[in-house]
């Protein structure tokens, strides 16, 4: 990489602005008995994106409350049908209760790859920077294949293969994320990830939890450092500058803020976290972002993204 440049990234949002948005969202959600939720989610995402500047330009979330409301209704209907099935069989079932619950969990697990796929497709299509859309080009059938194969291996290895499962999914997904005509790639693998977690787990145990922050730092680093962005023979690399001490300060203070403000300080905790993340990733390379061209298509079905919310998956990476 000759002519390597360091790119600038910063989060400019304030706790107060986010706090106001969340309070207004909460009021509107309560008054509408929760139906405002999709709009609330859109407002929050729009704000968080707009306050994150990369090379002085903001990320833009262009998803709307209406789209997400449609997805919300579909996701709700699907889950209502599932629950109805469970209740009916509990009512008439008697002894097959365990079987029904097992089936219920199996269906939810079976839906995970579909949810990841749909959620990425929607989120990426609705994210843009400098007017250039992100996109997710993964195949649903491929993701399903990887997920089921690895899930099977995870079960027969009593969970050990779970690290490979997580990394194979993450790699597949991130390898298919684009911004315009540039492509992300991810280089993490199950073996390294497994060792990292093994070390993290035992050291956390031996240090009575203190190592947790260093474990967190390692996980963050493993995500960031293995990420690349390529366009032709130009590329961008990401390096974590986060430290265990940094994470300790961030997380402990966040916890104190949330506790002592009785939860009202949540917005400030989020702000601190985003600041920390934005300030602790060094992004450099020889890619000229001027070369990016709009090439990803739009996609407006938010059902899977809303499903992820119902099951409290958050946004999965």
């Amino acid at each position, binding site marked *: 990489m000759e002519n390597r440049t360091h790119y600038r990234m*910063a989060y*400019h949002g304030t706790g*107060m602005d986010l*706090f*106001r*948005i969340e*309070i*207004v*969202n*909460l*009021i*509107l*959600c*309560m*008054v509408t008995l*929760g139906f405002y939720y999709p*709009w609330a989610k859109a*407002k929050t995402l*729009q704000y968080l994106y*707009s*306050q994150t*500047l990369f090379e*002085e*330009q*903001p990320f*833009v979330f*262009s998803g709307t409350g209406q789209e997400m409301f449609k997805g919300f209704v579909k996701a709700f209907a699907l889950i209502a049908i599932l629950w109805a099935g469970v209740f009916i069989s509990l009512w008439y079932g008697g002894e097959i209760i365990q079987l029904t619950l097992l089936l219920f969990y199996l269906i939810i697990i079976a839906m995970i790859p579909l949810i990841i796929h749909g959620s990425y497709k929607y989120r990426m299509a609705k994210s*843009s*920077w*400098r*007017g*250039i*859309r992100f996109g997710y080009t993964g195949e649903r059938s491929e993701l399903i294949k990887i997920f089921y194969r690895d899930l099977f291996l995870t079960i027969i290895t009593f969970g050990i293969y779970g690290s490979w499962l997580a990394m194979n999914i993450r790699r597949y997904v991130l390898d298919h994320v684009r911004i*315009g005509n540039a492509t992300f790639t991810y280089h993490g693998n199950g073996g390294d990830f497994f060792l990292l977690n093994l070390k993290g787990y035992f050291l956390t145990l031996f240090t009575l939890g203190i190592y947790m922050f260093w474990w967190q730092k390692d996980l963050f680093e493993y995500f960031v450092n293995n990420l690349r962005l390529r366009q032709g023979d130009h590329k961008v690399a990401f390096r974590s500058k986060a430290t265990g001490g940094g994470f300790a300060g961030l997380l402990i203070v966040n916890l104190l803020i*949330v*506790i002592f403000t*009785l*939860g*009202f300080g*949540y917005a400030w905790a989020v702000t601190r976290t985003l600041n920390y993340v934005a300030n602790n990733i060094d992004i450099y390379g020889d890619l000229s*972002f*001027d*070369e*990016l*061209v*709009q090439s990803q298509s739009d996609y407006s079905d938010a059902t899977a993204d809303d499903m992820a919310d119902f099951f409290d998956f958050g946004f999965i990476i």
Partner: protein
Amino acid sequence: MSEHPRLLFFDANNASPREVYAETGNGKIYLSNIDDQDGHVLIFETVNATVSATGNRLFIFLNKNGAYLSVEAGHPSYHDLKTAVQPERKSWFGKMMALKWPVLVTVLVGIFIIAYFIMARVIPAAALKIITTEQEAEIGNSFYRSLMTTEEKDTAATRIVNEFASRLYLSEKYRIRITVIKETEVNAYALPGGNIVLYTGILETMDDPDMLVALLGHEATHINERHSLQSMLSAMSMSLLRSMILSGFGDVGSIVLEHAGTLEQLSYSRKLEREADRKGMELMIRNEVNPVGMKKLMTGLQEANDNLPGIFSFISTHPMSDERIKTADAFAAAHKTATFAPDPELRKLWQQLKARK
């Protein structure tokens, strides 16, 4: 980045920006390239535009495709553009965002209080009106059955106490049935629809049949006045509210609200207890039993006040305050001159109860 503040246009086709001139007027934004003089002008409607501010920049999104302007503070067109594209004010969200944060917090707290009263009082009260006595008995019975699966019944005591109760006037609408449970804990409770459960522990604290009449009168009042059904309904709708708050507000917020709710709940249940004491004593009088038995019951329980865990434990749901004892005392004093002639069978049954092994 550069010396002079810039106005950049991103066309949503290429990531490379163009520096432009902007003019506003007639609800439109006119853009022209800074470096070509061919008069090529792009026109956008301000009604479709939205604005966001980050740091010292203004970003004006011109259309659904994602074309936008990035304006640095200090640029000659900064002010024009800022006034041309107003932040969202039409929607509820926009209107509320214009309010100051203390106002917002007050509104939120107000909504919480309203939601609390709807869930804890209004909905249970409405349900109370809808639920018939038969349905109430059904609900109470299913509760009773599930509670009894883990308890050991004292059959002899149960028989005697039921006979004792059958000689009393306790309820107009409900058939009162009593179950005595072999358990040293000092506890008694009433279920919706007519079931009263007594622990042998509470019987041990009594040395007088009037005290048992007082206890039955108190518990029967909980049933007659549907207190049990009310608190059950209120607990159910509160748990719904709690899960709603939990999903919307996170753990800490819900803990705070729960404690605030518990305080209110406590003062409310005290009100119900006072009513049960008073109407319980009225029932005693109706049965020609000296209401001083209520005071004796209370002092006896206060003495037995060891630490009782569990939500149904008598002392925790029935705090024996001095105030309650004083009220009972005053009530009894008012009937000092009256003569009482309780059913003599009651004493016989009481002796049987005490003599059983």
